[in-house]
């Protein structure tokens, strides 16, 4: 795969193909749908205020709304001029998910400030940042002024911090484990400090309890239970929440059940080797883990580097059987 780095890409990043170090391919929803005509919308409360109130409303939003509103609106300009009304501004207060009714909004504003709101209505605005400058302009005139801060996925790819040598080693271990154990699939759970939390193998996909991901999640929880019972464990060590901040290495694209289990367990990153045609819950079906509407997302990468594994290439063939749960 030739590197087509653009000016703004870092050395190891291929923005066009979504790969890092020519080894990890980003798995995400095909963004062709983002043609600018139909952004995903979200409903928000929009009000009119006197310009004198701007400062107060901006602090209210900053201190009491943005930290708590699950719907991030930072890609939108918060204030907009009212045409033909010199001293008036329109402002987006919060999502209607955060405060459900008009009465809730009024009560909230009254409780945390003395701002005078003149009118208020519901408004649909783009839920996510625009992918290109042209689209940001289209959306701005069609819905509400949108900020252009660059392609969010390009920014993401440039910002990923990943120790590629460590990943390479882990992938190698994973293949070794599969080969030695003769299992159908295997997983390794790794914490934030690159410390292996558990290694699991699956011998029968007919039993959902035996899938390596489910076993891994179980082992992490049992370990955490043990830690919390042990009084010598420091307070900080007791506060791990599910599999948060963990990276999961998996020999296969996990099935729908396992992908959703990883969402529930709040992992940070998944790296897998092979697709699972028909049963997989990522590139094959639904793209769970990078899907709007669920309450958690994680990075999804597929290991595409073959060169570095040339010493095990022959066995690689044997291992490359996709699975159907």
């Amino acid at each position, binding site marked *: 795969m030739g590197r087509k780095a653009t000016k703004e890409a870092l050395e190891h990043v291929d923005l066009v193909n979504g790969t890092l170090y020519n080894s990890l391919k980003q798995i995400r929803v095909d963004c062709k749908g983002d043609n600018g005509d139909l952004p995903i919308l979200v409903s928000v409360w929009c009000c009119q205020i006197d310009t004198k109130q701007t400062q107060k409303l901006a602090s209210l939003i900053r201190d009491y709304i943005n930290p708590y509103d699950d719907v991030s609106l930072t890609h939108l300009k918060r204030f907009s001029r009212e045409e033909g009304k010199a001293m008036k501004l329109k402002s987006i207060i919060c999502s209607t998910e955060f405060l459900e009714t008009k009465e809730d909004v009024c009560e909230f504003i009254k409780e945390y400030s003395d701002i005078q709101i003149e009118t208020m209505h519901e408004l649909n605005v783009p839920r996510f940042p625009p992918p290109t400058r042209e689209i940001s302009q289209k959306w701005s005139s069609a819905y509400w002024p949108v900020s252009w801060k660059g392609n969010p996925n390009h920014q993401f790819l440039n910002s990923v911090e990943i120790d590629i040598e460590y990943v390479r080693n882990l992938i190698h271990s994973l293949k070794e484990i599969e080969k030695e154990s003769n299992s159908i699939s295997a997983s390794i759970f790794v914490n934030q400090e690159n410390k292996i939390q558990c290694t699991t193998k699956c011998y029968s996909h007919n039993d959902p309890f035996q899938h390596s991901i489910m076993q891994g999640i179980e082992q992490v929880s049992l370990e955490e239970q043990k830690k919390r019972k042990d009084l010598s464990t420091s307070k900080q060590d007791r506060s791990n929440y599910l599999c948060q901040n963990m990276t999961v290495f998996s020999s296969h694209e996990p099935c729908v059940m396992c992908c959703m289990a990883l969402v*529930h367990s709040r992992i940070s990153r998944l790296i897998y080797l092979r697709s699972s045609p028909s049963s997989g819950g990522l590139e094959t079906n639904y793209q769970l883990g990078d899907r709007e509407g669920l309450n958690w997302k994680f990075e999804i990468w597929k290991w595409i580097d073959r060169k570095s594994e040339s010493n095990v290439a022959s066995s690689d063939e044997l291992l490359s059987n996709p699975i159907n749960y």
Partner: protein
Amino acid sequence: MTDLTFLFQEMAKCLFVGYRALTVNETPVSCLIEDIETNEILSIGYNYTNISLNGTKHAEFIAVKRLRDSNLNIDFGKVRLIVSVEPCIMCASFLRQLGIGEVVYGCSNDRFGGNGTVLPIHSDPNLPQEPYCSYGGILRSEAIQLLRNFYIQENESAPQPKIKKNKDIENKKFPTNKFNLTKDQFVEHYGKERLPVYESGEYEITPIVGKGYSLNEIISLKDLKDIPFLEEELGEVNEEVVNEFFDLFFDVGEDGRVNYGKTIRKYNAKKRHHEE
């Protein structure tokens, strides 16, 4: 005319299991596994994520594991799952991989529902394994009210003081009643005479068309005491506990609308009993 009294009884038992789980600080989502032929309750399950520190220990997993541990050769095609909330995407896939016979749920799961609300995992033809039959709306408003009793608690015990949200659940209305079914499927499960419920979204399903209900007319103390595994795991079931449970819910009138006239109470974890 389709008499749904049996399903209402089973769902009432199921909700009671969820209520008992609430008293050990678990999310009140619960289920029963029953033999389709004999209607015998083979296993029960309730959310166990907080105690186990494992986000996958949903009611369905607990109930299935219990059953399988006691009978390795169980044929899941012969069992019915009664579950208070529509199975999430994970559980829906799990149930399909097991080959579950039938799923009946209380309220839909707006955030994670895997039986049609968010994704149709139970019926998607692209997935391997046979699809399964699933329908919901039995004791829907009660299932929602039980969850609300949990969410108000959660806010109180949040680590940092969160922005106040509306805790006035005694007066909160219920969302539109939507079914993840085609009209034909709806008629098959609920009968033609209930089509207004399907079409308007404003009414609740009732055991008998044209008649309202109160939960305490549907099940008795004895029914609840007879639920297997419940007392040994979540404590004694007595009249006081059962009455506290009944007090959480509104009645549904003969017009199929929730009757907000009844004074209901809400569960308070700190006092471990209800407050007015």
